[in-house]
């Protein structure tokens, strides 16, 4: 695009001219230029310079010969030299000055008018006035001036510029008028000019096609001056079509030059149209036009010797269009959407400059080919008789002429086609386009990459690399080829890859890298066959020849000959060779992502997942290649992460040549009968392997040595995790399993776990049944050495919830608190031997609620050591105790293996005792508790006790554990409000009560509440107990420690009973003897209580007394009902039942059966005091 002249590239801008009064020119020019649309100005300081405006040419004769289509300078003439408007500037002093000055003004005006009249240039008269002198101007003179100038009054403008302060003001005041005048007149001028030419077009008053094109072009340009874009576009199109008709009809010039001219004009017209369309946002139309344009002219190759000009021209079309597209898409063009694209619509890529850049390169390449051909055909291009230098562009676009210097003048002489061809060849030779092609391809490559079109980018890159290759820039080429190769490998485009690798192979010859050469050769040789290889055998497939099996075998053979040092690698440089020898050994490394996995794939599988140290395990090495012919390996080395396990397999067929010298002394060497790899067949080798070191034993490398200086180091893979071979995974390949055992093929691993040596130390956990909540459970741990001495032993203790899930200890970042710990490790106590005490630093001890770590002193064989774990249960919970001992069997040998012993024990944590309680009333005494008779009993009703009465509290303790316990004391601890009630007694057992499992132990307390309170806290039952040691010696510490078991008594409701009924009768009776049975009713209230009572008859007794009645009990007094009873039978007899009913409270007392039984002896019994 840059090669076009500026006037063509930019839209035309109206041109005006100012003459005279040079002091205001700058001001006016700048102002006009800043207008929208801008106006360019020619500033002429005085009227004598007016001659720069070219005079009008004489009108064209119809018979006149037309020299060409467009004059080269026509456009620039109209843009820079022929103004549409001329402004004559006169100073006001001159206008209104003395006659001489006025005369001068008139003369200048006349001259100016004479000059511009021929071209119809419009005139504006500006009188430049001084500020403050504006009124000085004579009205007559102004009128005279206007008449002389023959301008409309609005084109006579008074301009007052001089006061600096008023500058802006003056412009803002006069500026609009000035500008409007200029713009109006310019528009009129261009319209008139356009119309003038258009009339000719419409009348078809032109003698030749050339003029038709020229007129269309001119009208279009005038329309552009007026910014009438649709009109301009239409006329450019007309011109284009007219030009198209000229192809093949014009006979004006020799054929070659004729076509060149037409193409040049077509290019310009198309450029104009594309610019207009793209600026108007009509991308689709622009692309359609471009398609049509290239289609129109693509076939017009021209004469055979200048076909290269055609390709150059075509590539320029693409280049210019790409650049236009790029600049307009930079302005944020929106591409239309599309799904399936109809053939007549542009596709996605056509909206991107990258597409065009890529296309250019193919044309440029065509051009180069044609140019070279043309150069080779014309033998005498070099020394042309110097006339070529004098060939210049002629006055017409697209024409060339010889410039002859004759007597100080230059004469243009037209060229013959032969001369022209020679000129173009010379010109063409000066530009070699390889670098241009690379630059364009690079642009396209980057653009496609930005579009994430990696395949198109790869193709550009490929062409670019090929271009580098042809320039012998091998390292550049190799880098690009390598990048693209990975794409083709990934997507399995075999033929493209084959071609590319062929180039890479040649590149490696160029860069002198034997390793690259071998790698690329081997990869090519191991490639799958392309599907239609047979058909392709005769066709071009890149520098490596056809992609056939035989060619692959050839490449394979060649590569191995070089690798074995049998032949030399011929380099691109003259007479230089490289050979693999001891100075230049060849070392290839194949890892998991290497494309060379197809060349050698090594799978290693251990037959077992784990093995004991020192025991033998089987190892299978499976090797496979896809190379077309057999490969014989001289030596295989298998390397492990434990280097002492490394071993070497030697091919028995091969004499022990230099390869064996690599063997280090002491290395294990195996011999295999043969080590030949056939295409796609597994070579399976199974060996036993032994490791003394526990941990992971992993095979890392399998190294194949072929010949004295060629090594392939192949990273071992596990069969279980083998990934597909690149390229081959798309092939219909016979799938074979790498190991004989199919199970191993799916699960085999290249690593084995070598176990630890067996421990010879006993770790005993003294189990003692369940633990009891609250006690510190003591668990002895004994370490007894049987066969190993113990050095640097460490004992780790872990407490784990058996049900998993909720760990016993909260997370480590939370503070520990006893509340949320159900079980905790409290202490580890151990007996430190005297001789170890001097090394306390060894004796690390670390205790956390669920974890403990303690060091074990060194033990000799046969020694033992023990410690005690103290674990406390806060809640009943079963736990798992894990104890592990780690030690070194040898002292001071860092290489020796640590041995671990693990033991675990499940321990139940149980509640030792359960405490229950019961409130009772004294025998045969019943207070009336109103809360008891009220309503239905509620489940959570708190028990009620009578105020100031003796209440009984029965505490029963049940042993739920499986061991006998000793109860030491039981007491009720009062809570805050001392004196609110009186509890008796506090039991401290003089001799511990042994409490066997399942037994229930009861104690009675009396409570006399002295406060009337609905919620009285009675206190907490506190039971002190310990395990009954019996004879068990190992629980010494248990004896000394007693545990408290607490049981909080529920709150009770204390109320004052309004009535208390008590029955009195002797403890026993004797048959026939009367006794008194009395019922006492106390009224604790201040009210008179009406009491109804009745006594039921009983067969066992004869009774005397009131049978039933209603009585009144006075306030705070008692009433006694007494009966005399005579028992009639003996044994346990039911007393006559007395029912007492309080009328006020509607409550009756029905004494319980048990309380109304009396034992009647048949005769008076004789009690004998035993000892007393």
């Amino acid at each position: 695009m840059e090669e076009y002249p500026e006037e063509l590239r930019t839209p035309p801008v109206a041109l005006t001219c100012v003459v005279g009064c040079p002091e205001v020119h700058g001001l006016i020019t700048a102002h006009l230029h800043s207008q929208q649309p801008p106006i360019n100005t020619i500033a002429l300081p005085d009227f004598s310079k007016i001659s720069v405006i070219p005079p009008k040419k004489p009108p064209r004769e119809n018979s006149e010969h037309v020299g060409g289509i467009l004059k080269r300078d026509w456009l620039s003439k109209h843009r820079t030299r022929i103004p549409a408007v001329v402004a004559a500037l006169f100073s006001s002093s001159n206008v209104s000055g003395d006659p001489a000055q006025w005369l001068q003004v008139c003369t200048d005006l006349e001259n100016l008018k004479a000059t511009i009249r021929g071209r119809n240039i419009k005139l504006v008269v500006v009188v430049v006035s001084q500020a403050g002198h504006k009124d000085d101007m004579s009205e007559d003179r102004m009128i005279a001036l206007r008449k002389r100038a023959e301008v409309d009054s609005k084109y006579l403008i008074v301009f007052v510029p001089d006061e600096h302060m008023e500058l802006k003001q003056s412009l803002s005041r006069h500026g609009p008028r000035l500008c409007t005048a200029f713009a109006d007149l310019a528009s009129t001028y261009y319209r008139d000019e356009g119309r003038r030419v258009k009339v000719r077009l419409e009348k078809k008053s032109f003698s030749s096609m050339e003029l038709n094109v020229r007129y269309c072009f001119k009208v279009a340009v005038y329309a552009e001056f007026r910014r009438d874009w649709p009109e301009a576009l239409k006329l450019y199109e007309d011109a284009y079509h007219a030009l198209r008709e000229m192809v093949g009809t014009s006979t004006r010039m020799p054929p070659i030059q004729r076509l060149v001219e037409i193409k040049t004009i077509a290019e310009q017209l198309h450029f104009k149209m594309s610019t207009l369309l793209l600026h108007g946002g009509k991308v689709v139309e622009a692309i359609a036009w471009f398609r049509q344009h290239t289609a129109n002219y693509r076939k017009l190759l021209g004469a055979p010797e200048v076909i290269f000009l055609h390709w150059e021209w075509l590539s320029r079309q693409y280049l210019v269009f790409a650049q236009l597209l790029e600049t307009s898409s930079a302005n944020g063009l929106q591409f239309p959407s599309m799904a399936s694209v109809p053939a007549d619509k542009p596709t996605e890529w056509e909206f991107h400059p990258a597409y065009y850049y890529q296309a250019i390169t193919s044309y440029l390449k065509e051009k180069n080919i044609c140019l070279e051909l043309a150069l080779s055909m014309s033998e005498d291009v070099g020394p042309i008789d110097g006339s070529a230098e004098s060939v210049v562009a002629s006055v017409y676009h697209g024409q060339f002429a010889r410039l002859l210097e004759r007597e100080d003048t230059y004469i243009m002489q037209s060229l013959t086609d032969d001369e022209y061809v020679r000129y173009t060849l010379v010109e063409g030779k000066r530009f070699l386009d390889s670098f241009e092609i690379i630059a364009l391809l690079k642009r396209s490559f980057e653009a496609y990459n930005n579009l994430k079109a990696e395949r198109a980018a790869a193709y550009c890159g490929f062409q670019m690399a090929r271009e580098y290759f042809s320039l012998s820039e091998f390292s550049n080429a190799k880098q690009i080829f390598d990048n693209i190769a990975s794409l083709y490998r990934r997507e399995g485009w075999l033929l493209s890859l084959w071609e590319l690798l062929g180039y890479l192979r040649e590149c490696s010859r160029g860069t002198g890298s034997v390793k690259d050469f071998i790698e690329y050769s081997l990869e090519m040789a191991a490639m799958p066959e392309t599907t239609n290889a047979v058909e392709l055998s005769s066709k071009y497939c890149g520098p490596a020849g056809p992609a056939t099996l035989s060619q692959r075998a050839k490449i394979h053979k060649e590569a191995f000959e070089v690798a074995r040092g049998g032949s030399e690698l011929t380099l691109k440089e003259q007479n230089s060779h490289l050979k693999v020898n001891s100075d230049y050994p060849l070392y290839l490394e194949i890892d998991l992502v290497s494309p060379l996995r197809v060349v050698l794939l090594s799978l290693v599988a251990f037959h077992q997942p784990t093995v004991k140290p020192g025991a033998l395990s089987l190892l299978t090495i499976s090797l496979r290649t896809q190379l077309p012919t057999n490969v014989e390996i001289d030596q295989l080395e298998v390397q492990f992460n434990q280097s002492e396990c490394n071993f070497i397999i030697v091919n028995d067929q091969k004499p022990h040549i230099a390869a064996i010298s690599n063997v280090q002394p002491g290395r294990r060497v195996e011999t295999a009968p043969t080590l030949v790899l056939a295409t796609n067949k597994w070579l399976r080798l199974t060996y036993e392997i032994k490791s003394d070191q526990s941990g992971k034993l992993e095979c890392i490398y399998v190294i194949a040595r072929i010949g004295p200086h060629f090594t392939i180091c192949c990273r071992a893979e596990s069969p279980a995790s083998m990934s597909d071979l690149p390229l081959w995974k798309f092939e219909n390949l016979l799938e074979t399993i790498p190991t004989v055992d199919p199970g191993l093929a799916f699960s085999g691993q290249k690593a084995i776990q070598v176990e630890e040596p067996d421990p010879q130390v006993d770790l005993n956990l003294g189990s003692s049944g369940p633990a009891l909540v609250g006690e510190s459970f003591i668990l002895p741990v004994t370490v007894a050495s049987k066969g190993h001495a113990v050095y640097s032993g460490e004992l780790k203790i872990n407490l784990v919830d058996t049900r998993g899930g909720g760990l016993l200890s909260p997370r480590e970042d939370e503070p520990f608190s006893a509340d949320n710990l159900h079980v905790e490790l409290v202490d580890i106590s151990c007996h430190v031997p005297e001789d170890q005490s001097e090394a306390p630093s060894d004796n690390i001890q670390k205790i956390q609620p669920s974890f403990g770590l303690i060091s074990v002193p060194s033990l000799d064989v046969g020694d033992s050591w023990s410690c005690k774990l103290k674990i406390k249960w806060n809640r009943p919970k079963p736990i798992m105790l894990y104890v592990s001992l780690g030690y070194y069997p040898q002292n001071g040998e860092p290489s020796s293996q640590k041995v671990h012993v693990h033991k675990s024990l499940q321990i139940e944590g149980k509640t030792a005792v359960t405490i229950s309680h019961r409130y009772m009333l004294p025998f045969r005494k019943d207070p009336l508790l109103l809360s008891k008779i009220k309503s239905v009993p509620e489940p959570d009703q708190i028990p009620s006790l009578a105020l100031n009465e003796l209440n009984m509290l029965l505490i029963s303790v049940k042993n739920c554990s499986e061991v006998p316990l000793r109860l030491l004391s039981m007491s009720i601890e009062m809570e805050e409000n001392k004196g609110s009630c009186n509890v008796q007694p506090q039991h401290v057992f003089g001799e511990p009560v042994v409490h066997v499992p399942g037994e229930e132990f009861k104690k009675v307390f009396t409570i006399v509440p002295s406060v009337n309170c609905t919620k009285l806290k009675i206190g907490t039952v506190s039971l002190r107990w310990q395990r009954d040691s019996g004879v068990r010696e190992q629980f010494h510490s248990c004896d000394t420690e007693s545990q408290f078991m607490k049981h909080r008594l529920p709150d009770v409701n204390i109320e004052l009973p309004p009535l208390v009924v008590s029955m009195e009768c002797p403890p026993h009776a004797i048959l026939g003897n009367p006794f008194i049975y009395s019922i006492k009713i106390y009224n604790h209230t201040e009210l008179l209580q009406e009491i109804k009572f009745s006594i039921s008859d009983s067969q066992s007794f004869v009774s005397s007394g009131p049978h039933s009645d209603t009585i009144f009990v006075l306030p705070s007094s008692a009433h006694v009902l007494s009966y005399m009873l005579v028992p009639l039978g003996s044994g346990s007899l039911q007393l006559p039942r007395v029912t007492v009913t309080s009328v006020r409270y509607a409550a009756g007392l029905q004494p319980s059966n048990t309380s109304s039984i009396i034992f009647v002896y048949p005769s008076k019994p004789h009690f004998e005091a035993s000892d007393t």
Partner: protein
Amino acid sequence: MIVCLAVVGHQNNPLYIQSFTEADDALKLHHIVHCSLDVVDERVNNPKKSGPTINEAFLGLLYPTENYKVYGYLTNTKVKFILVTTDLDVRDADVRNFFRRFHAAYVDAVTNPFHVPGKKITSKIFAERVSTMVKSFGLSPAS
């Protein structure tokens, strides 16, 4: 005339690629087919651009090169068919029709129980059938 036909698998790998020209441009055709996959990706991955015809297998003209036109077709199992023709004024309907028949041939080939999905199509019958179809393309009265 159809110069190249390709079946392209899920990893953009060629499952079947055959050129039908006498000239030595198999490589170039491979490149053209390979580059056209970018356009297929672009069309398939930008459904917002695609409008209402997204459900159609026929992708239309992928891109015009100087001498060829490249058409695409995407099966419901996301296997791509690419067609390269030298006919610069071929009708969409013909191409669509051709693809439909080619799709049928492809389905027959891959329903062979001995064919492993994702591997290359090596069936000779398929190749013959395709070759016949290619020869008849452009000769049928419809075109």
